[in-house]
């Protein structure tokens, strides 16, 4: 039976954050949901993607109409208890080549909020693995996802789309690289336990900073965060004393007051003999005095500055994105060809089964009729002989079917249709 690829879901463009959050799978845990999906008869294969910007079900289905309906119901149920309003307005549905194109664009980070951000590919791989472990991935999705990883790689190497910092934290790292020559002798101080700060501290850690200090008004939270990101917790009252050791200071608290003001920075800079300091203010409110940026050897970027830089990069990358779209178009075509060839596989199997059935029936009749005196060796020989005969007869048509047609040309389609009709293979 022919499978079609279907994607039902919502993303940052189709749904506001509250809606996305209400559908999202907690901590990306999708195993139970995948098991539930197996209960839907029209859905044969499925992978669930759930990130902060999108929740989508990618499925290979037998009956598209029914499956789309089932998938929508599935997402609605997922949302049960969160809100009464219907999800329908926020959902999009892609089928066939459109679905393939959509997944390729997602993998290549063309559909991301910040186009080109590299995280999405890793997330995609994780969700694909989860589905594989849950046993909901078959031939079609296996091929589809591996193809999408390949497309992402092609886009990354062949276009400049990933060469520019795209997320707020990678913009910050890029900026830090313009201030500091090497990170391995630099200390980072993280003030506050916000998620954004956590993310940025990790990114800096990956870039190889020497050490990380973490402070928070509630010391327990500082300890928890420090443990998570392998930093050392310090008491909130103590952080001004440690400030002179910090080359990069990340402020990420919800505090409405200024935590570090300009005179304090001037004093600290004198203490550290004017070694440059980089302040990154990414809290909900301003944590650092904006006058800090006017001090020599101190650089202050807040979340809006970082976003603006990311935005600028985005603008400059529009050409690159265009190139990437072209790659996606090519790859969708390639994939379509593969799906087309897949259609022949059932035809081949059906053709073989049809002839084999006739053979067995006739053989059984003869062996129980006028050939019933044959010895078991002779019976076996008859069986082998008839099987070989059928194979020889079918060799021509089957090898023709197996040949990868260069294009989905009309003759090919008619040929398959004719075979099905002549041997009454439809519905078998």
């Amino acid at each position, binding site marked *: 039976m022919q499978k079609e690829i279907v994607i039902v879901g919502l993303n940052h463009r189709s749904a506001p954050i509250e809606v996305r959050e209400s559908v999202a799978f907690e901590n990306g845990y999708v195993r139970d949901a995948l098991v539930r999906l197996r209960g839907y008869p029209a859905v044969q294969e499925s992978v669930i993607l759930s990130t902060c910007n999108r929740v989508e079900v990618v499925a290979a289905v037998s009956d598209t109409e029914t499956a789309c309906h089932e998938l929508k119901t599935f997402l609605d149920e997922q949302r049960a208890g969160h809100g009464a309003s219907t999800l329908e307005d926020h959902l999009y549905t892609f089928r066939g080549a459109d679905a393939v194109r959509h997944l390729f664009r997602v993998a290549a980070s063309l559909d991301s909020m910040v186009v080109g951000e590299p995280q999405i590919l890793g997330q995609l791989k994780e969700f694909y693995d989860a589905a594989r472990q849950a046993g909901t991935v078959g031939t079609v999705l296996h091929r589809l996802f591996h193809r999408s990883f390949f497309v992402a790689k092609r886009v990354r190497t062949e276009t400049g789309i990933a060469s520019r910092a795209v997320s707020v934290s990678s913009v910050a790292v890029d*900026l830090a690289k*313009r201030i500091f*020559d090497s990170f391995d002798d630099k200390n980072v101080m993280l003030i506050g336990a916000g998620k954004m700060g956590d993310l940025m501290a990790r990114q800096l850690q990956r870039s190889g900073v020497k050490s990380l200090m973490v402070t928070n008004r509630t010391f327990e939270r500082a300890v928890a965060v420090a443990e998570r990101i392998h930093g050392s917790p310090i008491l909130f009252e103590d952080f001004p004393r440690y400030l002179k050791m910090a080359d990069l200071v990340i402020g990420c608290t919800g505090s409405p007051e200024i935590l570090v003001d300009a005179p304090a920075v001037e004093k600290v800079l004198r203490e*550290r003999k004017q070694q*440059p300091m980089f302040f990154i203010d990414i809290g909900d409110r301003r944590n650092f005095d904006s006058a800090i940026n006017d001090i020599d050897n101190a650089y202050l970027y807040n979340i809006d*500055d970082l976003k*603006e*830089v990311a935005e600028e990069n985005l603008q400059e990358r529009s050409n690159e994105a265009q190139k990437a779209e072209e790659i996606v178009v090519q790859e969708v075509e390639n994939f379509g060809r593969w799906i087309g060839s897949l259609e022949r596989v059932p035809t081949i199997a059906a053709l073989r089964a049809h002839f084999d059935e006739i053979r067995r029936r006739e053989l059984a009749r003869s062996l129980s009729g006028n050939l019933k005196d044959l010895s078991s060796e002779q019976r076996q020989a008859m069986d082998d002989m008839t099987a070989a005969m059928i194979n020889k007869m079918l060799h021509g048509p089957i090898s023709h079917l197996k040949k990868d047609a260069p294009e989905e040309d009309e003759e090919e389609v008619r040929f398959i249709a004719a075979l099905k009709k002549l041997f009454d293979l439809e519905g078998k």
Partner: protein
Amino acid sequence: MDIILLKATAVLYLLATASFVFYVLVRDTASRLPTLVLLAGFLLHTSALSVHFLQEGYPAVTQFHQALTFKSWLIVALYLVIQIKYRLPVLGAIVTPVAFLMTLAAFAFGAASGELPPGLKTYWLPVHFTLAFLGNAVFALAFAVSLIYLLQERGLKHKKMTALLKRIPSLEALDRLNYQLLVWGFPLMTLGILTGSLLARIYWGDYWTWDPRQISSGIAWLFYGALLHGRITAGLRGKKAAILTMFGFCVVLGYFLWGETLFPSRHGGRFE
């Protein structure tokens, strides 16, 4: 012969300038081509100076135009050394056009006064000008590095993020290089002045004669000395240090170009 070589050098410096500008500012991609063209120019330049030395039996440094081209040779040599260690094509984009203009200017001024007075042909003279010129060349590069520092610094303060700024070295690296140049330049300058006063003793009768050249060198020396002191002890660095470095070189350059027309000196190799 050396004039032909020098002309070829100028052409190569021009080509190097064009390729530096093209690769660094326009195309914004890394390429070895500009450096290789510059290296070719440098080798020609070296041969031009060698030919002159072999023909005349004395280095080509005693006249203003000769001093100019000798300085450009030193600057290019220093840049090539820095390029190997730091990979700073942006610095090349600044230094190479300067070297080209200096070589070109040498042709414009031509030979003015004839022969070097026979009495000046001592061994101390080549030692003196080599040290003094090297010091100058180091400070010229420090000037350019400071300029790049200010470019990067300004970009960061004004939250600009261009591809060029991303490829310029970090503030930390530029500041360190700037400091190293000062550390090398200052002793060279000191030795230049010391050998100079030794020559003054030989030809003018006293180590210190209040000659305008000696006074201006003394001022520049004090300035750079204070800068170095501030850097080592008072944590003077970054933007302020860069601005002061540039200012110091302006003093040196300003005197080299105009000083001696205003305050005539007995010193050789001046602009006439």
